């Protein structure tokens, strides 16, 4: 398909010297025609939906972004790990630990500090604890050559136990404020959609942009992809495979920490088991997004959209369907998406295998 469009550009030049190279923008557009089509369709669809029912469309659109936030961040955690060759099944546990520590640190420091610095301290604590869990996973995979799925499961079980064990009922934390861009947030739909969110939502989008650039255009990205595809070759040319895996798992952990704190951003309080499977859904998001940052973003938005629709429909009681069936939607959707997308998915080649330098 892409090639067809490319040859459709001016044919008249043929016969002179050589065919003119299409400009960079045209080449980009022909390669990403499906994406462009999807974006255009979404914009048109949203426009008509807004004409039809502006209040609900705004609610669903803003809900999509809000629900997608933890999935984007957690999906990026999985992506960084797998691109480096390590399966991270423990994202769920990392998020839970992060949400817990973030909540506790914010809650206890708010008396000494004001709410702003307390929240910042909470975010740092969340990132730190999840990064430590990421380092633990890397250590078990690299040093102990433990099975990575079992290691991730250890993190998950530990997180459930430890966060329940140390949890203190009845504590509160200050609300994470929305960062609004004055005057811009007044724009109908677009204001609520882009300029009225908590800081972690903006962070999620920034993270995607950052990793999109660094993964494919920097030395770090090239090396990361190399140690995930063929660590032996990377080692031969002098890449410190194991050290980079440690670094990347810590980075991924910090992202999972942000994901965990983003749950506090929307819930306002820590609850036992509040991750509710999001760490696993994030893995599906990563696979559906084909191990690419932009893919993760798109997949997370799709999941976010269905979640937002679900809560909106349930709230409105639009259909006479028991709430439990609405509750199943994200999980059934995850399985369906994996069943459809999974066959063509190609993970990084060396994922899950221990590596030893010769």
């Amino acid at each position, binding site marked *: 398909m892409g090639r067809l469009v490319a040859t459709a550009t001016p044919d008249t030049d043929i016969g002179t010297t050589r065919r003119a190279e299409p400009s960079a923008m045209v080449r980009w557009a022909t390669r990403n025609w499906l994406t462009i089509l999807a974006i255009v369709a979404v914009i048109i669809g949203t426009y008509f939906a807004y004409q039809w029912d502006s209040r609900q469309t705004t609610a669903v659109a803003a809900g999509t972004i809000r629900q997608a936030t933890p999935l984007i961040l957690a999906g990026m955690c999985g992506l960084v790990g797998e691109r480096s060759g390590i*399966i991270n*099944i423990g994202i769920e546990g990392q998020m839970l630990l992060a949400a817990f520590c973030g909540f506790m640190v914010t809650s206890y420091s708010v008396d000494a500090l004001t709410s702003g610095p307390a929240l910042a301290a909470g975010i740092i604590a969340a990132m730190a604890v999840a990064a430590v869990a990421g380092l633990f996973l890397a250590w*078990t995979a690299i*040093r*102990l*050559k*433990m*099975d*990575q*799925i*079992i*290691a991730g*499961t*250890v*993190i*998950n*079980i*530990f997180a*459930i*136990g*430890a966060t*329940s*064990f*140390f949890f203190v009922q009845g504590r509160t934390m200050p609300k994470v404020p929305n960062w609004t861009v004055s005057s811009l947030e007044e724009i109908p739909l677009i204001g609520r959609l882009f300029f009225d969110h908590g800081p972690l939502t903006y962070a999620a989008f920034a993270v995607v942009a950052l990793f999109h650039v660094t993964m494919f255009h920097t030395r770090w990205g090239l090396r990361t992809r190399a140690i995930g595809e063929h660590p032996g070759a990377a080692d031969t040319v002098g890449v410190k495979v194991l050290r980079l895996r440690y670094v990347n798992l810590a980075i991924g952990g910090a992202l999972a920490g942000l994901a965990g704190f983003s749950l506090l951003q929307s819930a306002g309080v820590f609850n036992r088991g509040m991750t*509710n*499977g999001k760490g*696993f*859904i994030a*893995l*599906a998001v990563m*696979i559906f997004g084909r191990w690419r940052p932009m893919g993760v973003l798109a997949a997370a938005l799709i999941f976010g959209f269905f979640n937002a629709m679900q809560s909106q429909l349930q709230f409105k009681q639009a259909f006479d369907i*028991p709430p*439990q*069936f609405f*509750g*199943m939607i994200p*999980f*059934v959707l*995850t*399985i369906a998406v*994996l*069943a*459809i997308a*999974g*066959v063509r*998915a*190609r*993970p990084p080649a060396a*994922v*899950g*295998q221990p590596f030893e330098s010769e």
Partner: protein
Amino acid sequence: MEKRASLSSVVLPLIAVVLGLVLGALLILISGDNPITAYRGLLSGSLGGSDAIGRTLEKATPLVMGGLAVAFAFKAGLFNIGGQGQLLLGAAFAGWAGYALDLPAIIHIPFAMLLGGLAASVLGAVAGLLKATRGTHEVISTIMLNFVAANFTEWLVSRDGPWKDPEGGSLARTPEILSSAELPRWGPLPTGFLVAVAAAVFIWWLVKKSTLGFEIRTVGANPNAATYAGISVTRITVIAMGLSAMLAGIGGAIQTQGVNGRFEPGFNTGLGFDGITIALLARTNPIAVIPSAMLIGALDAGSTQMQSLTDVEPEIISVIQAMILFFVAAPSAVRWLLRQRDLGDEPEMQLATGWGG
């Protein structure tokens, strides 16, 4: 060589348990309680007297089944962490068969149990089929199915649900099962535990001695070789996941028929994870699953007594379990901690072969 390997398969899990308990004691100390008092409570609550032992066996029963489910799937190279959902489904369907049908006990008891197992096996078979035909990794699909099963069983007994107890008021539960579906109790010994032991022996026989077991082990060891030998990997994957789920489902059925007397949603959360710890503690040997499950069951059973003595939250048990799982899955960590090199060379479990494979 032989002898040393068999020694380490006993010694290593023991060391793992001791290390788990030691780290747990540290955590109890940090949270400001006395670990010795706490562990004394744990011990008396789980082994002190026939009541306590009965409680331990009762707790151990679904754990044997959950551990068997994980261990059995391991043999086919599959990781079933959907034990929780499968157990709920089994418990719910056994509950329905228990109150809705009027049969003589000799048929009623096994029928309700089997119905629960079959309902759960559907859930497992779906995960197996998706794995074999669509490459959907069973770790994700079984976890997702946990949430689906939890929602579904909750609906069954909710306000508008078909199996709701009409006399239960606002309580979400099925009516009480008929006495003909109840598993009897002999002193401190629950019948359900005997069923679980029989299941463990059966699975041991199935894996070690039967043709199906050979096929399952072959697929687990090398799917390509299995295909080459004419074994259908799809068939074996579906059967293995289905049977694995069935074991967990029967565990749920026993819980309904032998302990709770009806189905109530949301009991025994975390069983799927317990099953992983138990299966690895048993080094996936079906017979060894029994003592492993009894150990974890004893921790569970004693935790209430521990809490009443020292205010230590029973959740410490899952922290201890995570540590035990870690040490048992990473023999090299134990060697490294104890500066011990001669624990024998255990083949380390390898599951992580990437997605969509």
